[in-house]
């Protein structure tokens, strides 16, 4: 009975592996950005399950940080790494200038 959380964590890790393979394969860069959403849910679930399985409640804090980071990574992906657009309306992107 107490092994259920760890077994479920293994199951979720297998899910994560499969999903990661799918997401990292592309084809577009937007697909790769999905890793942020993926870790924001599956990673958090795995951490929570590990916290229960190993009796380390502090891992819940790590899960909180994971969820927070998912948002930050997603924002960094879409705002920072893609600051130019392929369409010719790049006037707004040009506003950024390195000094």
């Amino acid at each position, binding site marked *: 009975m107490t092994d259920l959380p*760890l077994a479920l*964590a*293994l199951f979720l*890790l*297998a899910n*994560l*592996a499969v999903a*990661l393979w799918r997401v*990292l394969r592309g084809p577009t*860069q937007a697909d*790769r*950005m999905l*890793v942020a959403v993926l*870790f924001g849910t599956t*990673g958090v679930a*795995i*951490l929570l399950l*590990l*916290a229960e399985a*190993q009796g*380390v409640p*502090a*891992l819940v*804090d*790590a899960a909180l*940080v*994971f969820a927070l*980071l998912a948002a*930050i*990574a997603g924002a*960094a*992906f879409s705002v*920072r*790494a*893609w*600051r*130019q657009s392929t369409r010719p309306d790049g006037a707004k*992107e040009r506003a*950024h*200038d*390195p000094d």
Partner: protein
Amino acid sequence: MSLSPFDLLLAVMLLLTAWRALVAPDPFRATVLFIVFGLLMALAWARLSAPDIALAEAAIGAGLTGALLLDAVGHLRAVRRQSSPPGGDKAREAAK
């Protein structure tokens, strides 16, 4: 604590992402793989019952470094895009 299937799978995933990150053809893909590696590493620390290191790895290793690297990728692209088209000389002048 003996080696469970969980640890085995996690180790394999870590090695795979590390290898893919090293051989990735373009910086964006390498950065994504780096972030994934960091998050998996945080899971590994969690599995080793080291919540504080897991927290630091996720926050600094994956989050902060990942965001900085993504920013750098964006800069590289912007620079490369400005210098590649024929009318890009003016933009390069402005950058200097």
